[in-house]
Every structure is written in structure tokens, then in C-alpha cells.
């Protein structure tokens, strides 16, 4: 089975399902609202996505898993996807930094500057 990449929060959501399965989608919505402050629509969106990735299935409102947690973990490369962000931050947003094109060499140089100070 191909590697399934999940973000940190997605994984936490998956954990919730594994812990409570089989769970009705409405119950899941409640759990997600408690844990994440998610809206109903958000929960459904993420659930759909995870189902599409082959982790879970939603049969008439009941959510069950297609692979167990243990199986999933063994398939993972343990690296969370940090960037599914397909595009730069718009210019008018206040951010921490926008520079994401540093080469490792540039990064090392800057690290040296910091450590030397």
C-alpha cells in the first residue's frame, strides 16, 4: 500500500476515529467540536478526505476503519507533511517570514552568524 501522508491534525482526527469506532458521523462531529472546535462542515470535509485516502469508510452515517492503527503506523515514514500549502502567502498578510527558498548552504551561513554573535 502506498504511503499515506497525513498532517498532524489529520492524524489526531484519525486517532479519534480509531478510538471510538464504529462511530456515527454525528457523534464524530460532536467529538471533533469538543477536541478541535471544528464546525460540522469541517469535520465532514476532513472525514471525506480521509475516506478518499483509503483509511476509513462512511456507510450510511457510520464510520469504520479500513485499516487498523497499527497497520497504518507501519506504513508511515513517520514524517508529517509540513507543506501541502500550494502557494505563497498573500502579500497583505502579516506573517513571521515568507522566505522559504533558503538553500541549505544559505541556512548554514545564517546559522553561523547567529552562533558567532
Amino acid at each position, binding site marked *: 500500500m502506498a504511503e499515506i501522508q497525513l498532517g498532524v491534525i489529520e492524524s489526531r482526527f484519525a486517532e479519534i476515529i480509531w478510538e471510538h469506532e464504529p462511530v456515527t458521523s454525528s457523534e464524530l462531529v460532536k467529538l471533533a467540536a469538543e477536541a478541535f472546535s471544528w464546525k460540522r462542515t469541517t469535520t465532514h470535509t476532513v472525514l471525506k478526505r480521509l475516506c478518499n485516502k483509503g483509511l476509513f469508510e462512511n456507510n450510511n452515517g457510520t464510520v469504520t476503519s479500513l485499516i487498523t492503527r497499527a497497520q497504518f503506523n507501519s506504513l508511515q515514514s513517520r514524517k508529517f507533511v*509540513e507543506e501541502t500549502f500550494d502557494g505563497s502567502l498573500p*502579500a497583505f498578510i*502579516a506573517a513571521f517570514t*515568507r*522566505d522559504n*527558498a533558503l538553500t541549505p548552504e544559505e541556512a548554514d551561513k545564517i546559522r553561523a552568524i547567529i552562533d558567532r554573535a
Partner: protein
Amino acid sequence: MEAVFIKIFNMSIAAGWLILAVIVLRFLLQKAPKWLTCTLWAIVAVRLICPFTFESAFSLIPSAETVSPAVVRYAPEPAIDSGIPAIDGMLNPMIGETFAPAPGASVNPLDIWAFAASIIWVIGLVAMFEYAFISFLRLRGKVREAVPLQNHAWICDGVKSPFILGIVKPRIYLSSSIDAEQTKYVLTHERAHLKRGDHIWKPFSYVLLAVYWFHPLVWAAYILFCRDIEFACDERAVKDMSFDGKKAYCHALLSCSMPGGMRVSYPLAFGEGRIKERVKHVLHYKRPALWAMLAAVGACAVVAVCFLTDPETDVSVETTDVPYDDMSETSNTPHDDEFETSNVPYGDEFGTANPPHNDVGTITFVGVIVENTMDSVKPLILVQPIEAEISYDHICFVLPDDMADWATQINSVVSITCKDAFEETQPPFGELISISRAESSHDLQAMFRTFGISIQLPGNSNWIQNIEYRQPDEDHLEIDYHDAILDADCKLLSIRDGMPDLPDIVYDETLEETWQGTSSSGQAVYINLQRSADSTQVLASWEYEEYQFALLADVPAKTGDLGAIAKTAITVISHLE
């Protein structure tokens, strides 16, 4: 809309000079705290927003109105006034030639171009807003799956670099895989942004950029401003940190700037990533000495005065006769010195006053419309002044769209109030303030013909207003008007071969004065000026040939100087033949 664009264009030219000055000053102030530089950018923003500003002699802006809407529309030889002779000299011959209207054309080519340009401007403006809106929606969709961390901070998958979203209820979004050490510093930075209000200033300045998208200097200003915000925010964030803390802060900055496992290329938006500079700034920044700070603040203030204010525009005074000129030369009355002390409202008559604002005097005259062109963009009328103190034979005026038909009919007699300055074109153009039907010239002429002489009041409409002529019979002529300087309602009675019917008012003999006027034939005429004890009722009386004149004024307050009454009489006399 075209007018809006021209105004925006002029404002951007003026702002461009300010931006250049700020760029230079910013370079010189590298060692100063960055919030000072941000203040400079705030001044730029003010310049870009306010359509009006003060005029001052210190203004270094070459010209506040490079492109004049009137010139664009009507001038037979279009030209710009950038305030720099070299530029004008270079561009205007080209502009004049390229955009010269064909004789008989109803619209100036420059007008068409201006219209096209304004359309393009709007398209660009809309595009900028659309881009912003779509980006914003995209981000919003992404952060729907965010999970609260603490206070206003949330974590989210798919977020690499932390950012703030929201203006009214701003939220900080962090990457879900951020580690605890970094979190601390990132939150400090983002909170500093919030404290400084950057989550408002950034989108706000983007709006300005969207409006002025066509001006390269405004883009430069925006890019530099964004950089300066980051520096200022760094300064604020590390204000109370130990040196080790600052180093840790820089490490966090570095980690957040590095691509993770999957290399995704991020277009470097506006060069804010200048990580090396930011790191150096954080590590080496020290508050400058007090004197340096004061000097820097002083320099900013100077820039503000020099570039926030507009250049003073010259008051052009033309044509009007100075009614007192004759008197000051020929009279030897005891009131000679009174002529020197002129009040400001007489200023434009003397040609010496320089009002602080672009306030040219106005003039009212009666004229007849000799030509009109209805097929130009706006109706134009050609007016021949009659009985007026104007040196031109004909003057051209633009009429607003909603002008009544009578105002454009040839041979219609109109009373026109316009600015006392005319464009030296062929024919001269005037700036219309108001137009109204006048006593038909025939009526007025007829009146004067029957009466035997013509009576002319001073033409300065800041002074003599609301003139009404009446002719009870062929030997009587009555003129009612309002003297704005004394705020007095006045009545001028003239009678041929008779004595005027005067009201029963007791005048104080000790306050009687004598003035002298000169008729146009050079005859001296003496004016008897009487006033009541409380100086509220004034009577100026004189005679000329077989005519008797009585000027009655009802002056509201006890004014010492009733010179205006005498001067009106003198003007009337100066037109008598």
C-alpha cells in the same frame, strides 16, 4: 470617473516626490529604530489618501496639479505642468503636437486618452482587489481545519510559515508541526505584530497599492514598507529578551524559513524573507543616543512639512480697474491717507494682497451671448461683456450640463459671476461661478438712454452684490444693492432736474465729511457724506450737471470707517461722462 483618475494621477505624482525623499531618508536612518521609518511611510500614506492639503512656502513638491482637467478637456494646446521646467520643456511640445485637437473638433484627443486611461486604471484596480480577495478566501478555507492552541493562537496542517488572519478578530496560525521552542518565539513575534496593529496596516497599505497600482514608486514604497514592518516587529519582539533569547529567536526564524522534507518552491513574495538582514538586525540592534533620535525625528518632521504641503499657487490678478487709483492721484481731500489702508476684500482690486489660499477675486458683469457651441462635450458660450470693467471683447465659458436653455441662447443677456482671472487663450477662457438672467441689455441700455447717463457700480462681487435696477419714470433711476464689506443694504437714487426724496433722518453735523471723485471727463465732483449720530444711517450725496445723486446706506453696526460708501460714489462718478 475620468476626473477621479486625473486627480489620483496628480496625487500620485506629488506623492512620488515624497516617496523619493523617504527612500533617501530611510537609507540615512538605517541605524534608527524602524518604527520611525514606518512613521515616514505613514506620511506617504497620508499624502496618497488626502485629496487636499495645506499650501506652504516650504513645499518641495514641484506641482500639485500636473495635469489639469480643464486643460485636458478644452485647451487648444494641451500641456502639463509638472513644476519642473526641464520636464515641461521636454514633454509639452510633444504633448501639444500629439494631442492637438483638429480645428473644429468637438473633443480634445487628450480627453479621449484620459478617458481610456481611467478605464484601464479601474480594470487594474479591480484586478488587484480580486487577487487579494481570492487569496484571502483560499487562506480562509485552509484554516477552517485549524485547532486552537492558546488565546488567539491556532495550529493548522498545511501551514508552513506562521501568519495572522483577520482584522477585527485577528488570529495567529501556526504550523501544526511546530516545536515548543519555536512556538514561544513565533508567538512573541506575531503578538508584536498584533500590538503594532500590523494586521490592519498591511491590508490597508495594500488597498493604497491597489489604487495606485500604475505608479512604480508606490510599489517600491509598499515593498520597503513591508520590510520595515518586519524589522520593527522584530525590534518589538526582542525588546526585553536576553542575548541568548535573541539567538534562539533567530534560530526559530531560520527554521521557519527553511523548506521541510518536500521541497516546494515558494515564489519569494516582495523579498520579505531577508532572513540574513533580520538576523543581523536583531543581534546587533542597539537603541541610538537621544540626540540621534531627536535629529531623526526632526528630519522626519522636515520631510513632512516639505512634502505633505503643496506649493503655493500664485494669485493672478488681471484687468480690474482700481477705482481708487484716480482718487489717489488727483484728490487732495483730507482723507487721502484713508486710501492706503485697504481691507483685504479690496485686495484684488489693488493687486497687492496674496491670499493664503488659491482664492482669486471674482467679478460680476453683464454680457450678451454672441456664440454658442452645443456639439462640444460641454456647452460653450462666447460672451461679450457690456457695461463691465473687463478688458476683453469676448470671453468663453463652459456651462455645466444641467444649464437651462436660456443660458445658451444667442443674444440672451446674462449676468455672469466668474473668477477674476482668465486663461490667455484665443478667445480667453473664464471660470464660471454663476450665471443668471440679467436685465436685458436693451432694458438697461434703454434705461440709461432714457435717463441720459449710465450708472456703473464697482464690479467686485465680493463687495457689491445683489444689484437691482429700477426706473420709476424717465427722470428717476433707483439702484438697490448690498455692500458686503459694511454688510449694509444700500440704495442709490438718481434724479434728473430735481431733488431726491430722502427719508427723514437726522444726521450729526459734526460727523459730516467731504470726499472728491473725478468724472471720466476730468471734472471734479464733491461728495457730501453724512451720518447719523450712531453711524447706522449714512447718506452720500452729490450732483453732476443736471443730476442729483443720493446714496443711502443702512449700516448694521457702528463701523468707524465708512470709506466703502464714499468709494462706491467715487466709482459711479468715475463713469459719468
